[in-house]
């Protein structure tokens, strides 16, 4: 059982929804993003998505694109992102860390070596945007063998015919992308999302978490009420872009978490 499985089992026992937050590793620099990361659990974050910067984030809107650029310019590398996880783990052995990003930095490192290093650093799961089920042999299956969850994205275009294929090798939780679009774009509508989550839950026992287009505590509450939890990324990263101090960002995160936990 990974930390992700344990966390969702505990939330279920308490009858609580999950709040998942995304931050970009190394944005705007290593020390402040590590400080932000370490503050997330106390702000009410149940699962941390740690963005792995990439030069060409094709599924991301301008906010996450710029965050990745800032991180890379500040010297963030895969090694430094793993170092962040290690440092976080020194003070927190229960909050799951999901690394989210694109495949090339991992492929460049070598899959087996990456998986061993990620596991050792305390990473629990992976969300790799450009690896659909058709490419499962690349990383998904090796990751599961190495004891890491591979969390799949399901989208509004994933129809019932295709859904079993998407669910087949997924573990930890299912990440439902609320809109057809990029991160930080249109607003997610609970009315549209509810039936889609139900459609997915009819085919899996895994928790279904919804992300993309959630920007306020109210939206986090509305979305979490029709799913097992909500993810917020761009709205948090935007505050980093604006140069807000870490405590102020954590206050904002606490508000979002409270919203999701009210659901």
């Amino acid at each position, binding site marked *: 059982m990974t930390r992700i499985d344990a966390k969702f089992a505990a939330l279920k026992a308490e009858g609580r929804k999950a709040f998942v937050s995304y931050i970009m590793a190394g944005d705007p620099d290593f020390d402040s993003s590590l400080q932000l990361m370490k503050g997330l659990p106390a702000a009410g974050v149940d699962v941390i998505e740690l963005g792995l910067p990439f030069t060409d984030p094709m*599924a991301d809107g301008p906010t996450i694109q710029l965050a990745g650029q800032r991180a890379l310019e500040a010297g963030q590398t895969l090694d430094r992102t793993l170092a962040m996880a290690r440092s976080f783990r020194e003070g927190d052995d229960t909050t799951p860390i999901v690394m989210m990003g*694109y495949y*090339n930095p*991992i*492929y460049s490192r070598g899959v087996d070596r990456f998986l061993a290093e990620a596991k050792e650093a305390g990473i629990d799961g992976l969300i790799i945007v450009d690896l659909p089920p058709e490419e499962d042999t690349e990383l998904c299956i090796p990751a599961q063998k190495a004891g890491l969850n591979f969390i799949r994205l399901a989208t509004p*275009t*994933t129809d019932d015919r295709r859904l079993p294929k998407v669910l087949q090798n997924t573990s930890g939780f299912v990440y439902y992308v609320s809109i057809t679009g*990029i991160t930080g774009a249109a607003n997610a509508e609970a009315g549209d999302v509810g039936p889609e989550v139900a459609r997915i839950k009819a085919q899996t026992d895994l928790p279904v978490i919804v992300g993309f287009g959630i920007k306020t505590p109210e939206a986090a509450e509305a979305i979490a009420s029709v799913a097992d939890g909500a993810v917020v990324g761009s709205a948090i990263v935007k505050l980093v872009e604006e140069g807000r101090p870490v405590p102020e960002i954590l206050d904002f995160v606490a508000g979002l978490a409270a919203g999701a936990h009210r659901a």
Partner: protein
Amino acid sequence: MAEDLVNSFMTGPDENGRFGIFGGRFVSETLMPLILDLEAEYEKAKTDASFWAEMDDLWKHYVGRPSPLYFAPRLTEHLGGAKVYMKRDELNHTGAHKINNVLGQILLARRMGKERIIAETGAGQHGVATATVCAKFGLKCVVYMGAHDVERQAPNVFRMRLLGAEVVPVTSGRGTLKDAMNDALRDWVTNVRDTFYCIGTVAGPHPYPAMVRDFQSIIGKEVRWQLAEQEGEGRLPDTVIAAIGGGSNAMGLFYPFLDDPSVNIIGVEAGGKGVDDRMQHCASLTGGRPGVLHGNRTYLLQDDDGQILEGFSISAGLDYPGIGPEHSWLHDTGRAQYVSITDDEALAAFQLCCQLEGIIPALEPSHALAHVTKIAPGLPKDHIIVMNMCGRGDKDIFTVARHLGFDMGG
């Protein structure tokens, strides 16, 4: 040979869209269902005689195919060795080979009921071709173009706008073809239900590399019969040469000759300021290593941490840090040879072609021509080289003037 499929180079890709380890479908889940639909639609069209009848009609009456295969006598004499032929795809409607492929994809988009077409463009040739065919069929057209390229290819930007397309300057990254492709993919993922992404080269997720190659291979098929007509039945070229950015004109010329072992195949990458540690070039095969970008695994310019590097070339059309996956496979198997040519060498070939043959070539095929000028002198006089003159140079005269220190005003 062709009958012996086990040893054929023409059977790829496999059902997973792979050429050896290259290719594949590395896209987000949102796009995956559409890519599978596109593959199914293309498989149907491929064996549908009415589809090809429509293509042939448009190629003939709208594009002006077949393009001539031209023996270049003064260039041949000047070089003093092999006979040099030029495949004149710069004479196509819109001035480049790009329209060969655009017509095929737009016919597919129409079959799929898509009314909004998006495209990425570097030099603007693919954008102009897409805008042109969209105007002809009354389709909405949006072209993503790096802001840096919008600046250096102003005439093509105006052409696209005249043709009714919306041109979106892309400011992310360094504002070149790679960044335009990122933004086109972002548009597609947002408007996936009504939008068709018309990719301009033999890259991207399967089925694009194979589909674009198939549409472009009209170039090589014509060369086969045209050369036989001029040089005698059964005479094949000894060497075929083409420039490579993503590699669509090259794949179009090479593909019909892959199973003819006597034909020497050479792809010419953009060497920019020289293929060395400064990385001011776009030679993915000679200066890169395998990675995953824009939906496929292929050779890429990247740093030690898997971050993609910006390419550099005088030619906006070659300014891309990757290459079509089939080229990566042909490189690794050794079936084709890949070399690089610097900006300065391309500029010299550009001028030579103007002066000796009365043809103003685009900067892209000037790279291929530069390599011809290197190898032809050392080859026997009965050796036949066919180079692909894949685009005309009207769009490049401002860039060339600047490099030659000629003041065009304005």
